[in-house]
């Protein structure tokens, strides 16, 4: 898979050469399909991927991630490092040098003031900024000169590249958004739907949740780009229709997130009008095991809290047996095809912090049965379900409503039945499941089930905040309105201790090693989390579109300025 | 028949039955349809009072209000000593066996989903504690009484002809040995050749059981045949109450006169006297004319008729008329 991405990238790079001589707007119209329609172009008001990515046509960050997760400068002229002096030696500040000569699409100059304003905009306590996490720990942002910005942190930051990087933290124009601070942010309809940007395109028309029309930005810094004079970003429908519109009917050039079942992937590709492109990032579909007791018999407020350890899963052998009974290859084949790959790791990428566990990839039903016998779970009454101390091995397995997840549920239930476990399935409307409503019993945070399944990832390439989720003090419970991120209620002092060392480690190598260890503690060693599938990004592009490079670390439209028609 | 010593079985005084009209933006009560407007009469035990009038004159409403199938607006109805409008629901229920009704449309007055036995047995079910067999025996007895074949007890009403259906309705009315029966146009929906069957039956029953009838009809010749006294209604009010023979030979009220003269008689000899043809139509009971309510069509109208409403007054032995012509102010 990786090979293919590389090849694609190379091919694209190769294709870039002739494009350099191209003329801006020479290739006519580009038609993009985001079946989840775009609601706003301001990434700070919605962190929905679709909104962020559509926004990246217009708004740019200081630096972006390329297809390998490496930072590349956009509005900055270079990536600051300790080596080039951009990052202070004590890791408490980072200084960005801005690209000279960058203009906003309205012709005005892009300056350090815009960068500072963006920080103010997102950190206003009343603004409801969706990307607040990107600016966490930032003490101040100052302009050293009109083209130099210094970001100071309130503590040493071994990974100082969170603010102003990636499509989730683009720079807004101060002049346009000056009146949109705080509570006014939401009422700035015009600004949010037609932001002035530095990117290759500018908005001409915006129909909420429907269609956006954009024209090439006349003030874009590269006079030869973009190749398309006009872009339409259409919304509506579903993944299948979106894939079909590119792959079969050829109505669109590119369709985002065409996650469809594998058989149809093959059939659509046979249409010959387009290709599916994929890239793997950090999104892992996993089964989380509840370390606490979700029994409805417990009083409300004590279900799934650390007061009551889980009666069955407290035994590591049992958890391992659950993992061994699963055939992850089948899951991929049934559910994802080219859009996924089996994994045993919580952090599957980038390479420097991904563990190389593969042991779980082979299913071992017999081994699982043996482990359960060892743990004392035996089928004594011959009904096919194991018992221990008069208690049946019966569990509730929940996830959100989603065709693939329901297939997974059915398959996993089959395997677990096979090793003598009774499984009850429950599927919850995603709006409820992921809704975080503290009053609802059905949120994934409340975890009123024995095991549950969903997918999660982390923003950018650095896993530190991700691993922080499994600290003891992040366990959700009634005290914090169930808002903690440690869904499993996993608590291991050793893990907490090891995580602390991450806060001081610098350099990919050193940080990667610690992340791998943390990853293994959660997966391989304790089987608290059973990773299933590394889900890639999976989109469709027309064969007539060239210059496209799939990216799983940033917006898929990250290099839209380089896209052009096949000649 | 008119025995001065006996008290009337039914005594109706100043009976009014108004149906309110609501109109306007707020559905205010803006008027009334005066279906029955101040009607008084009495019926002696064993007597048949005929109540005649044209459609819409309120004669059926009188019958229904007497039995309190409608809640009368005001007035008094005494039947066999009880003040009917004042009775509490349970007392009224207890009273129902003494007063019964025979309806106009024998098709509509029988529940199509019940068998004849069920229909005739319903009053027994409601008011007696007879055993199943006793009840069946009584049902058979009633069927014999009205001339229905017992074998039909399990049939449904649709299997019967109009005349037979009316017999079923009569049997139901008789089930509880009533004293007083309101016959609401019992023959209007029947064919000519059947009408006589039903009327004869009603007369037989009256003779045998000593029943008292209020016989409501628009058929003046039939009323002449069956009634002892006759009340003529016009637009919610009684125009004239007279003994039968007196009325038919010498109607006093101009409306009664016109009504009688309008009836076509099956006698082509041309012996019939000159017809009185009334002009125009009956006014709406929602908006009756001022003064005498017949003044718009009366061939003998006088100025006073348009101003003052005539009262029903006794003008001769047993004859009451509401007309300025007969009893001047």
């Amino acid at each position, binding site marked *: 898979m990786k090979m293919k991405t590389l090849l694609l990238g190379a091919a694209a790079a190769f294709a870039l050469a002739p494009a350099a001589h191209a003329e801006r707007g020479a290739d006519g119209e580009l038609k993009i399909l985001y079946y989840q329609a775009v609601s706003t172009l301001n990434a700070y008001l919605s962190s929905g991927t679709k909104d962020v990515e559509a926004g990246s046509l217009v708004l740019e960050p200081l630096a972006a991630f390329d297809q390998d997760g490496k930072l590349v400068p956009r509005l900055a002229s270079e990536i600051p490092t300790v080596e080039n002096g951009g990052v202070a030696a004590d890791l408490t500040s980072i200084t960005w040098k801005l690209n000279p000569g960058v203009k906003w699409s309205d012709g005005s100059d892009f300056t350090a003031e815009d960068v500072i304003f963006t920080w103010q905009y997102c950190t206003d306590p009343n603004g409801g900024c969706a990307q607040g996490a990107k600016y966490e720990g930032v003490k101040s942002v100052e302009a050293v000169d009109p083209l130099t910005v210094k970001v100071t942190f309130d503590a040493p930051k071994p990974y100082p590249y969170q603010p102003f990087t990636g499509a989730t933290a683009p720079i807004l124009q101060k002049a346009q958004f000056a009146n949109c601070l705080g509570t006014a942010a939401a009422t700035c309809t015009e600004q949010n739907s037609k932001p002035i940007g530095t990117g290759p395109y500018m908005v001409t028309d915006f129909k909420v949740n429907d269609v956006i029309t954009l024209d090439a930005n006349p003030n874009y810094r590269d006079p030869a780009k973009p190749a398309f004079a006009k872009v339409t970003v259409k919304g509506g429908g579903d993944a*299948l229709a979106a894939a*079909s519109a590119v792959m079969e009917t050829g109505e669109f050039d590119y369709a985002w997130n065409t996650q*469809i*079942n594998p*058989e*149809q992937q093959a*059939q*659509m590709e046979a249409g010959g009008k387009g290709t599916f492109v994929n890239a793997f990032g950090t999104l892992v579909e996993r089964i989380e095991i509840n370390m606490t007791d979700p029994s*409805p018999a417990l009083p409300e407020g004590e279900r799934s809290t650390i007061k009551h350890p889980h009666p069955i899963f407290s035994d590591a052998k049992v958890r391992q047996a659950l993992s061994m009974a699963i*055939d992850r290859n*089948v899951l991929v084949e*049934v559910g994802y095809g080219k859009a996924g790959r089996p994994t045993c790791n919580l952090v599957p990428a980038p390479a420097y912090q991904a563990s190389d566990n593969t042991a779980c990839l082979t*299913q071992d039903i017999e081994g699982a049965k043996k482990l359960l016998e060892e743990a004392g779970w035996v089928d004594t009454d011959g009904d096919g379900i194991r018992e221990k101390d008069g208690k049946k091995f019966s569990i509730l397995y929940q996830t959100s*409503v989603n*065709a693939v997840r*329901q*297939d997974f*549920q*059915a*398959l996993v*239930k*089959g*395997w677990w*039945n*096979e090793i003598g476990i009774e499984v*009850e*399935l*429950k599927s919850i*409307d995603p709006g409820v499941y992921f809704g975080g409503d503290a009053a609802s019993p059905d949120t994934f945070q409340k975890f009123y089930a024995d095991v549950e399944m969903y997918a999660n990832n982390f923003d950018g390439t650095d896993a530190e905040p991700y691993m922080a989720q499994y600290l003891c003090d992040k366990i959700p419970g009634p005290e914090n309105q169930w808002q903690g991120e440690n869904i499993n209620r996993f608590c291991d002092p050793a893990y907490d201790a090891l995580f602390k060392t991450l806060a001081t480690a610098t350099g990919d190598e050193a940080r990667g090693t610690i992340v791998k260890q943390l990853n293994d503690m959660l997966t391989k060693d304790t089987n608290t989390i059973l990773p299933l599938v590394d889900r890639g990004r999976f989109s469709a592009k027309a064969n007539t579109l060239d210059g496209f490079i799939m990216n799983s670390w940033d917006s898929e439209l990250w290099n839209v300025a380089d896209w052009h028609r096949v000649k | 028949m008119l025995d001065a010593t006996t008290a009337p079985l039914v005594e109706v005084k100043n009976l009014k039955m108004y149906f309110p009209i609501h109109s306007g933006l707020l559905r205010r009560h803006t008027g009334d349809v005066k279906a029955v407007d101040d009607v008084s009469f009495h019926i002696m035990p064993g007597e048949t009072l005929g109540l005649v009038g044209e459609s819409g004159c309120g004669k059926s409403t009188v019958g*229904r209000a007497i039995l309190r*199938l409608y809640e009368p607006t005001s007035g008094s109805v005494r039947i066999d000593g009880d003040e009917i409008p004042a009775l509490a629901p349970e007392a009224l*229920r*207890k009273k*129902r*066996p003494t*007063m*019964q*009704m025979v*309806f*106009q449309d024998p098709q*509509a*007055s*029988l*529940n*199509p*989903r*019940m068998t004849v036995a069920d229909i005739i047995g*319903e*009053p027994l079910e*409601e*008011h007696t504690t007879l055993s199943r067999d006793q009840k069946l025996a009584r049902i058979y007895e009633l069927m014999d009484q009205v*001339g229905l*074949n017992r*074998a039909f007890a*399990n049939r*449904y009403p*649709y*299997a019967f002809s109009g005349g037979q259906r009316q017999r079923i309705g009569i049997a*139901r009315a008789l089930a*509880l040995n009533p004293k007083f029966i309101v016959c609401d146009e019992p023959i209007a929906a029947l064919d000519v050749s059947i009408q006589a069957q039903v009327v004869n039956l009603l007369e037989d029953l009256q003779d045998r059981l000593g029943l008292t009838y209020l016989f409501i009809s628009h058929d003046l010749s039939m009323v002449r045949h069956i009634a002892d006294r006759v009340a003529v209604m016009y637009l919610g009010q009684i125009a004239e109450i007279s003994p039968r023979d007196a009325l038919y030979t010498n109607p006093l009220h101009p409306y009664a006169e016109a009504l009688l003269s309008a009836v076509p008689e099956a006698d082509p000899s041309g012996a019939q006297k000159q017809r009185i043809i009334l002009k125009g139509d009956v006014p709406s009971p929602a908006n009756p004319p001022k003064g005498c309510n017949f003044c718009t069509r009366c061939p003998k109208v006088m100025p006073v008729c348009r101003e003052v409403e005539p009262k029903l007054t006794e003008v001769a032995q047993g004859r009451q008329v509401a007309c300025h012509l007969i009893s001047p102010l």
Partner: protein
Amino acid sequence: MTDTTTAKIERPRSQWRDVWDQFRHHKGAMVALMLLGLIACFVFIGPLIWQIDPNFIESDAVKMIRMRNQGPSWAHPLGTDQLGRDILSRIMFGGKISLAVATVAMLVAIFIGTTVGVLAGYFRRVDGLLMRLTDMFLALPLLPLLLVMMFLFRDAAASVLGPSLGTFLLIVLAIGVTSWMHAARIVRGEVLALKEREFVLAARSIGTPSLRIILRHILPNVLSPVLVAATLGIASAIITESVLSFLGLGFPPDFPTWGRLLFDGVDAMRTYPDRVVWPGVAISLTVLCVNYIGDGLRDALDPRVRGR
């Protein structure tokens, strides 16, 4: 009274015989009745013959992969789905659920509708209130209402009755509670007319109390329109259930209904059109049959038509 008629004592002829006689002449309805009978046999008796568990998944990975997305064969006359489950047995099972849901939901709707209709029609005092309520229900957007009901009561229902039965009852109630209004209006109109019929007046003159008048005289006589409404109610309940399932708000995935199967099938429509066609045809055919039967019943129960 002629002598000939008294001689033979006829057995009481039930009115339903007449209805049936009339119904038999409605060709469409008869064909539909037979088809529906076949469908019912297929759904209710079929599983006794075709005993494959609709949720059976081969646990051996290799076998399972081989079993997936099979075309028609003797082992699986309608093929298998993406998890290797037998489609024929799933359609049977789904049909059972769909028909059960529809029937029970219809009963709920008819019960509520008839009650409201009779009360409103018979008691003038509550008429305005009940009809306002009906109008309000008619003006409510039902999709969100269904959603909310599913959400609010799902847990309670599931904890008391178990997840399958709980969801079943909930869906049935939800559909019932949101589809009684037309029945109520029809019944009310009918009761208003019946109330003025002389046999009701006759019952009152006998002194029959209101409750018994309703039970003995009103209800049996509103049976015809109610029956027709009930038949058509089944049709609309099947559709509602399938729309709910189609929007993902219906039964859990291991509890297939026709709507759910269709919903799942739409995903695979391009590759395996038959996955959409079978449940789609099942739904359409059933609803079509039920509608035809409703038509036939309406004609058969209409006294005006019957008289002809």
